Structure formats: structure tokens, C-alpha cells
């Protein structure tokens, strides 16, 4: 069908494009500019060349934040594995299964701040977890979970995984229900037991969902902030143990008023996200060629 040129399609797109230009494209360009300046948000930016980037390279906290953010990506395979398992568990006809499915979804809608506060109190020095561990004799002394540099990041990651599993399981559940029953029958005839049939039928069948969840959950992991903010009480944790790249960006820009330096961190975040996304797409594409 050939149509003469009309303005109509563009008119439909104008609001979205204007908003994206104002709140995404312009800010990216502005951040690039600010990253070469000394800037505190209030007074006009002053050009300093590559000083911010030079400082970045020699800043141990930046490298720590970068490492923590990279470590945080471990949450992604964990959440995928657990939510696929959960989807398989709830994909059966049992009375009341809808209620269970709804319950597992609760953390996904409750909001990271409310969840973070709940978890923070569970992990307090005299909180619930220590109380249980001591009264059952597993511990004799309370552990300072949230001020111990070894535990802050893993606890935040656990929180992310815990809140994400129910959410992603819904995606996987929908995927499972789209897999034709005949494939499972065929697998059974071929002698697959109930575990093998999931390995040989469910997992390949869930491929599009796994790709989707891998992308969105790892992008979310790269920009984690709320959990760290609440769990470490805005400090980033002892010895920056919980400081992620976005947390460091926030602190430099909005606590320490180093918006120029923070912009350089933002550019590092952007590059990290781009490299990671391109790498991820490559890996996932290579995987899909073989299937």
C-alpha cells in the first residue's frame, strides 16, 4: 500500500518526542557538558577540561562503587533461577493457587522504601533475625548485619531478589502457560521424568521471557539506589561497602554539591550501561542462533 506523504504520523508522535527530547536527550547532552565543568547546581558551571575524569580515575570510592554495582549483577541470574522455579511451582491446578500467586506478588507492589525499612528493622542489631538466631542457639553474640562491610551489599541484593521473584514469576508463568501441552506429552513418551521435562521443554520454551527478564532486571540492578539508601541510612555503609554507582552519583551531586564531578560519574554509568547492554544483546543473540 503506497500512501502520499502526510503529517499525521508525526503529529501523533510530537508529544512523546518533545518530552523525550526535553527529559532524556537534552539532559544527556547537558550531563556531558557538566562533566567538563566545576558545577554546584546553583552557580554557573565553570569549564575545567578533563579534571573531573582525571579525579575519577584516581578515586578509590568510584572504583569501589563500580565494583559494587558489578557485583550487584549477580542478583540477575539468581532472580531468574528462583522466579522460573516459582513459576513452575505455581503452574498447577490447586484450589486457592490464585491466593498464593497474589501473595508472592505483594513485595513487587509495596515499594522499595517500605520494604527497605521493614528489612532494616529485621536486620538491626537487636532486630528479629539476631533474636531468632540467638534464641535458637545458632549465634551467641548478635551480628551487626548492617554495619558490617561484609553483609551490607549481600543483604541489599537479597532484598532485591526477594522483591523481584514474585514479579518475574508472573512473566514466566504466562510463558509456561503458552507452551503447548503436547510438548510435555512428547517429552514424557521420550522417557523424561518430571525434572527432565522442565529442563528439555520448559526452559527452551521460556527463552523469550528469560531474555526479557535478563535485560530488565540487570538494567535495574545497575541503577540500584533505594535499597542502599534505606539499609545504610543514607551513608552508603561502613567503608563504602554498600555504595553503588548511582548512590555515589547522588551523594556527589546532591549531598556534596559536586554536580560537575557527579556528571563524570553519570557518564561512567552511561558507558557501563551501554557496554553491558551491547554485550548482553550479543550473548543472547548468539544463544538464539543455536536454538
Amino acid at each position: 500500500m503506497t500512501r502520499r506523504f502526510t503529517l499525521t504520523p508525526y503529529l501523533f508522535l510530537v508529544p512523546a518526542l518533545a518530552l523525550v527530547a526535553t527529559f532524556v536527550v537534552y539532559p544527556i547532552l547537558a550531563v556531558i557538558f557538566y562533566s567538563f565543568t566545576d558545577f554546584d547546581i546553583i552557580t554557573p558551571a565553570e569549564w575545567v577540561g578533563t579534571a573531573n575524569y582525571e579525579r575519577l580515575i584516581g578515586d578509590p570510592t568510584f572504583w569501589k562503587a563500580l565494583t559494587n554495582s558489578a557485583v550487584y549483577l549477580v542478583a540477575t541470574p539468581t532472580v531468574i533461577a528462583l522466579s522460573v522455579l516459582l513459576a513452575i511451582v505455581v503452574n498447577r491446578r490447586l484450589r486457592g493457587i490464585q491466593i498464593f500467586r497474589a501473595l508472592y506478588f505483594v513485595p513487587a507492589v509495596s515499594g522499595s522504601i517500605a520494604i527497605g525499612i521493614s528489612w532494616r528493622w529485621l536486620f538491626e542489631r537487636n532486630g528479629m533475625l539476631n533474636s531468632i538466631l540467638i534464641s535458637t542457639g545458632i549465634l551467641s553474640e548478635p551480628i551487626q548485619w548492617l554495619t558490617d562491610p561484609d553483609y551490607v551489599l549481600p543483604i541489599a541484593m537479597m532484598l532485591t531478589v526477594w522483591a523481584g521473584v514474585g514479579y518475574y514469576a508472573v512473566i514466566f508463568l504466562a510463558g509456561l502457560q503458552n507452551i503447548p501441552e503436547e510438548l510435555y506429552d512428547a517429552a514424557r513418551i521420550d522417557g523424561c521424568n518430571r525434572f527432565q521435562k522442565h529442563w528439555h521443554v520448559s526452559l527452551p520454551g521460556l527463552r523469550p521471557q528469560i531474555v526479557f527478564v535478563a535485560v530488565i532486571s540487570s538494567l535495574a540492578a545497575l541503577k540500584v539506589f533505594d535499597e542502599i539508601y534505606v539499609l545504610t541510612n543514607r551513608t552508603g555503609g561502613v567503608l563504602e561497602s554498600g555504595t553503588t554507582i548511582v548512590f555515589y552519583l547522588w551523594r556527589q551531586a546532591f549531598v556534596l554539591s559536586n554536580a560537575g564531578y557527579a556528571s563524570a560519574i553519570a557518564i561512567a554509568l552511561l558507558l557501563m550501561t551501554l557496554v553491558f547492554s551491547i554485550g548482553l544483546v550479543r550473548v543472547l543473540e548468539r544463544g538464539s542462533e543455536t536454538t
Partner: protein
Amino acid sequence: MTATGVVIPGAGRARARRGLETVAWYVLLALLAVITVFPFLWMFLTSIKGPQDEIFSVPPQFLPGHPTLDNYTAVLDQLPIPRFFLNSVTVGAAVTVLNVTVAALAAYPLAQLRFFGREAIFYLLLATLIVPAQLTYIPSFVMAVNFFHYYDTIGALILPNLASAFNIFLLRQAFRGVPSELIDAARIDGASELRIWWTILLPIIRPSLAAVAIFTFVTSWNDFLWPSLMLHTRDNMTLPVGLVALQGFFSSDFRSIAAGVTMTVVPILIFFIVFQRHFVRGLAGAVKG
């Protein structure tokens, strides 16, 4: 999963085993439910504990011996929770209606019309999905203060959140599912594109619109970092920002903090229960290749 047409020897024993298996599944499901709900339950139980009830004892005391609503009144005396709630609802409703409208407008030509630059525009929008929003907060902050003049108002939470590449992407998928003969027929009848969009297409993709709307609302409701940068005056705060203020205010009074958290979680839970079917359908529809 029924094995039709297959006669199984020893059906009685098989049935007994299946019964046992069902019980095992329920045990597992219940265990998982406890893991999921426990922090909230603990929060709620703490929020109704009186001053005589232990909240830090070893072993832990689960049930309140002297249940009370005092903690709730203490929080409501100190912080304008209803006001936070109203602000969150206002922002959520405005963002949802406008964002979904903008997305539905943009998604239609991307899905069903042919025009110069379509692919380029689509991939530009898709690329913005990758950009972390936090990256834009410094320039957005400057704009909020110097250009839009909406610092410390809820307008600052609405305008920057009106375009979502994700929603455009999802609605584009939905529009692509509409048979183009339907649109062509309407065109032959002389309907304008805007009329086709409004009277024919939007009703057809209503389930997708509902799903996208609900997700937009929940995302807006739970958004924290940007609102925390923009909102300063207590009366302008949304619930998550107010919750952090509350945590600072009641620093070690855990009973009151628990009451505050409970008050913010319950409304969104009710919202979720009411719209549960749409949540599931929306998430399910998100990934179809």
C-alpha cells in the same frame, strides 16, 4: 495434565500418592508465602504493640499482648499522612492518564502507519530505555529550578514522567495485533486517523491500556529518588518521601515507624488486590517476542 486414554494399574495407590503430593505442594506454597509476607506481617504486628509489649526481646515476641492503635495516632499527630496520600494519588493519577495517552498516541503510527523515519524514531525511543533515569537528574534539577519553576511542587513529579519508552513499546505491540483491514475500512469510510485511534483502536486494546496504566501508577506511587530531590516542604511530600521523613522523625520509635509503613503499604495492596487480574495479564502480555 491428564494422561487421557492410558489405563494405570494400581489406580488406588496412585490416588493416595497424589493426595500426599498435593499436601506437599501446599506445604511448599505456604512456606513460600511466609517468606514473602513475613516482613510485612512483622511490621503490622509491631505497629499495634503497646509500650508494655517487647519488640526487641530474645526470643522474639510475635503477638502483641496489649494491642493498641496509639502508634497510629502518634504518627498522624506528627506527620500529615493523609496529605502524603493525597499527593501520591494526585501524582499517580495525573502521570498515569497523561503518560498512557502520550504513549498510545505515539504507539499507533509506529505500529500501523508507514512514514519516513519510522524505524529511526522507534529505535531512538528504544535506546532511551537503556538510559538510567538517574543520569538525567542533575540537568532535570537545574531545569526544575531555573526553567519550569516547579521545584518543591508535585508538578516536578508529573511533567518529567509523561513519556515512557517502555509503555510506547508495549502499546505498539498491542496496536500491531489489530488487523489492518479494520483500519483500512474505517479510512474508506472517511474517518480521520485521530478518530480511528480514539473510536476503533483504543477500545480494542483496552486490556493492554489497563495493564500499562496500572504499572505506570504503581511505578509512580513507589518512585523515590527524584521525588526526594524535588520535595522539600512536608505538605508537598508523597508517601515514600514522607516515609523517609517519618523514619528520621521517630528515629528509634519502631512502633510508630511500623505504623507509618503499614499505613503506606495497605492502600497499594488494596489497589493491587482490586486490579490483580490486570497486573497478571499486563505482565503476561509484555513479552511476546
